């Protein structure tokens, strides 16, 4: 394969092309300029390209974001049936890149594991094995991750029927091999293997932690997930573009609006439509309120695990107040389904701005109360400081983003590095902390709540009093109801959108926003039809959960509980 020269080159892909031509990989990698530079490579050259991309001084793609498998069975004109689509980010140069590994063998797609290059690839590759059957050579623990162990077949392949279930009993659950033996150390002390979860008060959502305990110390741990795998990606393939929106609400369900905004932005970019300023500002304001809600739940639940129950109730007051606002806008408290492709479902009520302003008065009082109880409390400081430490290099190697990465000292926030939805017009700060322990994450989240309030205040100052919230393209947005009732043309647009779904031009796109947990991206592939061909959300807490077992090794169980709370694992997003 030779390198292809498209007519217009972006600087990033020019730079990569120039560097590749001087490397041994010249001629083996194809570069195309889609929404982000896209490289195509075959499995035999994948690891060399991976090392090149991570280490080359002009590339430095050190943050492994996502691996999405794609089955091209119903996509005519593709080179191979299976592709592994890897998204990477360079913290130094602040750009994203996509690498597609094309696997020619359709019966048993094989490619080498990138785990030595980016340790974050561990669980992403296990998931691709589980859902597509990709064989990653060199992976230390290639087992099913999300589906249960009695599952037969690979669920996201196009020839797998969406409703095909398999019977699973307790005997089918496979424990890791190391868990079966009990070392006997010198001194006649045996270690015990403890199974913490999946139903446990300290495991938020359901996480199954298998820990070998040496007294109180954790000698070795492994996390098993999949207890909440609700098949979001398969459901998105069987529904239309707009029908996916309620499913996105249930991804990160504590901040439901943000997922919806991320998803519809991806589709809107593929369609090439713009939203009016009022709609954008409503989305921004409600997203920031959702971010505050998310941090409230996280800090509250984390402190409950420490035994500090009062803060939970204070922070839930915040949540209830914000619920009142969301419910006034769209009718539901938690799973809002408020966004639509092209705008919002309905406009906000007339008292939206006064409601927001009164929330801006009441929320800081509760945050201040929590800080008074927690920040200088010796007991909590002793439990949080120094536990769950993630160094800067570890955080980057493990693919962390969001408050976890910022608490390890890396100032990467999508709202600052690639501003979207008018974030660059507001004056706000990114909160970081250098230590990387649980206390740093707590402080970062408290500060992020205050920064969110700052953003909302500024957004309310520029909020247009009136105006449309939806794009006026009726191929995408449902026409206004009185037009539908009285006008034939609107009725036809309405009918086509409801019955057949929106026509999105063929192509693919990865769009990313700052979710409450980190970089929330959506990789969407459109192939005609009324719904997505493939939709992969990049879950920000997935790499955090993957590195959890490494963080807690050597610590005590109580530190593990404190750390798990501060990772902000939302099972809906972790396991989609």
């Amino acid at each position, binding site marked *: 394969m030779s390198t292809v020269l498209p007519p217009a080159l972006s600087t990033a892909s020019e730079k990569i092309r120039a560097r590749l031509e001087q490397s041994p990989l010249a001629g083996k990698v194809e570069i195309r300029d889609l929404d982000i530079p896209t490289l195509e490579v075959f499995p035999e050259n994948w690891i060399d390209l991976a090392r090149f991309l991570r280490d080359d001084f002009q590339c430095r793609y050190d943050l492994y974001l996502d691996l999405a498998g794609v089955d091209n069975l119903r996509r005519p004109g593709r080179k191979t049936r299976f592709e592994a689509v890897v998204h990477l980010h360079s913290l130094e140069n602040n750009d994203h890149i996509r690498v597609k590994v094309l696997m020619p063998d359709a019966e048993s797609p094989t490619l080498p594991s990138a785990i030595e290059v980016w340790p974050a690839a561990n669980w992403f590759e296990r998931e691709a094995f589980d859902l597509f059957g990709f064989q990653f050579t060199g992976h230390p623990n290639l087992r099913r991750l999300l589906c249960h162990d009695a599952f037969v077949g690979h669920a996201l392949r196009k020839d797998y029927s969406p409703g095909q279930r398999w019977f699973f009993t307790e005997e089918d659950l496979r424990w890791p091999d190391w868990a079966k033996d009990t070392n006997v150390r010198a001194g006649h002390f045996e270690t015990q293997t403890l199974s913490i979860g999946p139903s446990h008060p300290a495991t938020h959502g359901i996480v199954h932690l298998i820990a070998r305990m040496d007294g109180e110390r954790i000698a070795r741990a492994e996390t098993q997930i999949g207890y909440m*795998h609700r098949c979001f990606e398969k459901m998105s393939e*069987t529904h239309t573009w707009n029908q996916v929106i*309620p499913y996105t609400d249930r991804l990160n369900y504590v901040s439901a609006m943000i997922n919806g905004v991320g998803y519809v932005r991806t589709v809107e970019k593929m369609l090439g439509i713009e939203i009016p300023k009022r709609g954008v500002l409503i989305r921004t304001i409600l997203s920031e309120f959702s971010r505050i809600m998310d941090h409230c739940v996280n800090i509250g639940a984390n402190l409950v695990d420490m035994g500090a129950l009062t803060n939970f109730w204070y922070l839930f007051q915040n*949540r209830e107040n914000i619920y009142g606002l969301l419910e006034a806008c769209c009718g539901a408290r938690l799973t809002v389904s408020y966004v639509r492709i092209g705008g919002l479902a309905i406009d906000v009520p007339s008292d939206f701005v006064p409601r927001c302003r009164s929330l801006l008065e009441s929320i800081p009082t509760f945050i201040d109360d929590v800080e008074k109880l927690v920040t200088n409390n010796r007991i909590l400081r002793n439990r949080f400081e120094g536990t769950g430490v993630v160094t800067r290099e570890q955080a980057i190697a493990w693919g962390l983003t969001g408050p976890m990465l910022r608490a390890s000292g890396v100032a990467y926030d999508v709202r600052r590095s690639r501003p979207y939805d008018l974030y660059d017009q507001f004056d706000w700060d990114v909160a970081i902390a250098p230590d990387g322990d649980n206390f740093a994450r707590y402080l970062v989240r408290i500060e992020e709540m205050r920064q969110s309030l700052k953003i909302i205040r500024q957004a309310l100052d520029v909020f247009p009093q009136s105006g449309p919230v939806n794009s006026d393209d009726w191929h995408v947005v449902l026409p206004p109801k009185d037009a539908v009732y009285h006008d034939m043309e609107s009725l036809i647009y309405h009918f086509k959108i409801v019955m057949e779904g929106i026509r999105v031009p063929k192509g693919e796109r990865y769009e990313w926003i700052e979710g409450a947990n980190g970089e929330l991206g959506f990789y969407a592939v459109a192939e005609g039809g009324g719904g997505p061909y493939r939709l992969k959300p990049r879950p920000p807490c997935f790499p955090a959960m993957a590195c959890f077992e490494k963080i807690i090794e050597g610590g005590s169980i109580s530190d593990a509980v404190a750390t798990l709370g501060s990772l902000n694992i939302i099972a809906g997003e972790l396991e989609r």
Partner: protein
Amino acid sequence: MFGRGKDLPVSTAAAGGGPADFLTTKLETMIGWARSNSLWPLPFATACCGIEFMSVVSSHYDLSRFGAEVVRFSPRQADLLIVAGTVVDKLAPTLRKIYDQMPEPKWVISMGVCASSGGFYRAYHVTQGIDEIVPVDVYVPGCPPTPEELMYGIFELQRKIQAGEKSRDTRSARFAQANTSAWPTPQQEREEPAAPAAGASRPAGVERP
């Protein structure tokens, strides 16, 4: 006492054997009253409904007003299993084990549509209703149900307890039996795949990718 649902057969003196049963039925009424007003919930919270359950026990709605303050995460100490959120096939044996570990009398509330029927996840890994696994006493719809809706469900359960139904609802168990006939029993071959989840009929003529 607050539920507004359908009437339930209440154990009255007339329904029993007459004056000789007066003391027994009064005792049963008292026991029913005591049980219904001191439920100890086990929140088997998996997903979004778990967050709404947290709202129910928080200050705005406060379930402890009805005696259910003590949330116990150990099944040995709880009598009300509130399954809040989607149950997937991987979690199903765990749910069954938790249910089996609870001592009698015990009740199950299926909170939310995901727990009651699979919700809108007609998918390859989601249990289409926990009544495939455990007998359910009250189904609370909603996605997620508002906290008042869950409280209404708990009131209905309290009515049921006071009417004398000790543990499993025979109608629910029969329904579970009838609807898992498509699901292979453990004696059957493991290789035989289960039938896909049934759905309401859709009008023909629309293509999906």
